[in-house]
């Protein structure tokens, strides 16, 4: 009996394994590689929105209430943090002048951190933007902002003039993320109703992917001609092209299941942020790339 109990305990302990191993990434297409590019050990909290530009990865660090900049092999640099009033930075873009604009789903508003590190409100939360979500820079240089409680998509000029691009009557429940293609069409992720919308350059709104089981778009990013989509509800990285439709590239499980933001570097390598523990400020930034060719 004692031996049986010992075996029971050995199996139980062996089964638990080190906590670090409780995570898995599955590639569903041949030829992909995946690696941890950075983690909370590199100076992040729990990352959300990502943006790659000029050799730097900019991170909306939701768990750490900060904006960070990081490049491979370095520790993250903090551009702005809670001392500047950041609460839950969600998504971010950078303009030609080097200003970082970001949304904040707890504090609301649209914010700008300039090259000198000064953070100011472009649209204050009191101006009808109680919780801001997705953010994109339009080809015209306007900022496209998701107003979650208002179920609207707003257009904000760099000077701060606000207008409604898509009103609440459109049916969009939660404009979580945006991406423009090369023709000026705007893709909109609604992760409440689990719909990918397309607003064509002529202003018409289409439900591109809806009522699809196992699909809830979180973040959008173009890499080449393909739109890459993260799905935090189902732990997926997907790819959409008009020719091939929607395809699953990779699945994420365990501590890596909560995939959030996505960015693509100049070589077409994808960066995906993972919130392992938002309150505990734990997370990862994963890099995925094709071994043989660009994505």
């Amino acid at each position, binding site marked *: 009996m004692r031996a049986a109990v010992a075996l029971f305990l050995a199996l139980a302990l062996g089964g638990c394994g080190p906590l670090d191993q409780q995570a898995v990434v599955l590639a569903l297409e041949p030829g992909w590689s995946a690696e941890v590019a950075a983690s909370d050990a590199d100076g992040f909290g729990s990352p959300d929105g990502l943006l790659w530009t000029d050799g730097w990865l900019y991170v909306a660090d939701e768990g750490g209430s900060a904006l960070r900049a990081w490049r491979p092999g370095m520790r993250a640099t903090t551009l702005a943090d809670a001392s500047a009033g950041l609460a839950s930075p969600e998504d971010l873009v950078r303009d030609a002048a080097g200003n970082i604009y970001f949304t904040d789903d707890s504090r609301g508003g649209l914010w700008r951190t300039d090259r000198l590190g000064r953070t100011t409100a472009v649209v204050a939360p009191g101006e009808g933007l109680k919780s801001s979500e997705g953010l994109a820079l339009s080809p015209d240089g306007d900022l496209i902002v998701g107003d979650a409680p208002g179920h609207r998509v707003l257009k904000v000029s760099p000077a701060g003039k606000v207008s409604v691009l898509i009103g609440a009557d459109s049916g969009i429940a939660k404009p979580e993320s945006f991406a423009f293609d090369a023709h000026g069409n705007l893709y909109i992720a609604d992760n409440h109703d689990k719909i990918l919308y397309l607003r064509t350059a002529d202003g018409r709104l289409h439900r591109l992917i809806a009522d699809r089981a196992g699909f809830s778009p979180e973040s959008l990013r173009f890499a080449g001609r393909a739109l890459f989509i993260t799905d935090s509800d189902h732990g997926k990285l997907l790819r959409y092209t008009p020719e091939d439709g929607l395809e699953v590239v990779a699945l994420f499980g*365990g501590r890596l299941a909560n995939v959030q933001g996505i960015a693509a570097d100049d070589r077409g390598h994808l960066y995906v942020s993972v919130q392992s523990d938002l309150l505990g400020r734990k997370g990862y930034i994963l890099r995925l790339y094709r071994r043989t060719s660009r994505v």
Partner: protein
Amino acid sequence: MEMVIRLSDWLYLMLNGIAGRSWLLDTLISLPLDNNLVKAGPIGACFVYAWWSGGGEADTRRRRATLLVTVASLLLVLATTKTLAHQSLQPRPFVHAQQAWHLEGGKLVETPRLAYRQPLNGNVRSRYEALKRGEIEQNDLVSFPSDHAGFFFALSLGIFLAAWRAGAIALAWTAVAILLPRIVTGMHSPLDIVAGAAIGTVGLLALQLVARHTRHWALEPLAGWTLRHEALAAALLFFVAFESTNVLTNVRDLAGTGQDIVGHVAGR
């Protein structure tokens, strides 16, 4: 441990090598996975046989006491296997056939891929097809230890302790019809099965041992009650046999609904 895993992988590859060659063979092998009657009907029948088969009142009382403790141990075993499975992310062998990485020391390390022969028919074939389309059940990421092995091994062993002939049939059915197909189709590795069976054995024996101390004030009076109220006891026995066919799925669903109701009433 590495040698055990290698042995397990070798056994899995040998057994999975049977799959994908004959539609008829794969259909028959998949039948206990896809059909609860085939899977657990014989085990339920053995349980009912053991319940009624005592030679006299004292023997029947002993058998029923053993079976009652066996039923209680199923909850313990299931809770143990489920808890351990969710502590340890071990995808099913057919998932391991994909290119995969796991976290090790803060880095993603490529997991050695397992060869996989897809069955030509059955639910596992559908699950593998769904995986290739990017649809995965969370259950498919947590296969160690096998809850089926723990549950049915404990149940069959309990029947064996009560009535050895019926128990021998139940154990044989568990091994050949329930557990072996799970390896052949890539649902579990031999290590998952052995670990589950070990938990089932230890859980059952430990509870039988503990229950001996309650013999006079709980176990025997309860067994005696089933003799005095045969009709009611038979009705309750129906529930036990019914639930044993689906690893207490309905009971677990009911517990989840109960939790939802409590949460709803509490305004959460």
